[in-house]
């Protein structure tokens, strides 16, 4: 596993580009979902307090 990760870190390895691309795209997707979820819950809690 470690050797695979070290190998993936090398620019020459095609898989390093694939892993970088997938990490960025799917990471951003999960990040945005988490941000929206947190923000929506916060605003709804505020709304409940205001009632």
């Amino acid at each position, binding site marked *: 596993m470690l050797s695979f990760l070290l190998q993936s870190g090398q620019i020459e390895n095609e898989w390093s580009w694939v892993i970088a691309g997938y990490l960025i*795209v799917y990471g951003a997707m999960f990040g945005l979902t988490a941000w929206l979820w947190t923000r929506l819950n916060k605003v*709804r809690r505020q709304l409940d307090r205001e009632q």
Partner: protein
Amino acid sequence: MTPDMTKDTTGDAGGTNLDSGVRFRKIDSLAIAGIALALVVAMTVPADALQGEVQRLMYVHVPSAWIAFLAFGVTAFASGAWLRTRQMSWDTLAAASAFVGVFFTATALAAGMIWGKPTWGVFWTWDARLVSTALLFVLYLGYLALRRATPDPIDRARRSAIMGLIAVFQVVIVYQSVDWWVTLHQQSSRGSIDPQLRLSLWVSVFAFTVVYIGLTSRRKALIEAEEELRVRQMRGTAVAGDAVQAPDLGEELHA
């Protein structure tokens, strides 16, 4: 399975929070299952004969771009629907879809740059497809900035609806750019793609579509909740203002 994204999802209506929570959970479950399937298929289909393993980036780059186009199309449709009906839920849908469209344009650009480096030797080049996509990104950032810069809801809806209808033409320019100009970016590979690769691409498109629906529904609910909170806080301020009695200057004025 897909939610009605024009439906009111604010916490004001009784039980709506609970309904939207259940709906979000359903979409999230479908999105996670779709992404897991897309990942498995994308990593197990044979690599492209010419490009090798880096071609697997197609399964995140192309769906990102297509979903961005879909999102901006929905923004244009909702903008037209607002101009016709004046229902604020259409305006909120347009805003939410544009926000998610900007996000997917950014991921398409990022994945494209990462794909470009090992295949073209550069992350970026002044190619018609790349430049027109960057312009699309900036154009819809401008759309979101216009919304933030207009405090009145009706003015905001009107201005952004007009911009949403005009800006969608940039999507056509991006799509046609590989045919209209000589580009480094490959032309559309409609019909010439291997069936296994095509299947993997469609699985990814399905997963990204579910993610788009989830993100847009959540963003729309957030915009509506924030608007509701703003209105309530304004009402609270107005009540405090009403309690302040102006001094009676009647006699002094008549004197």
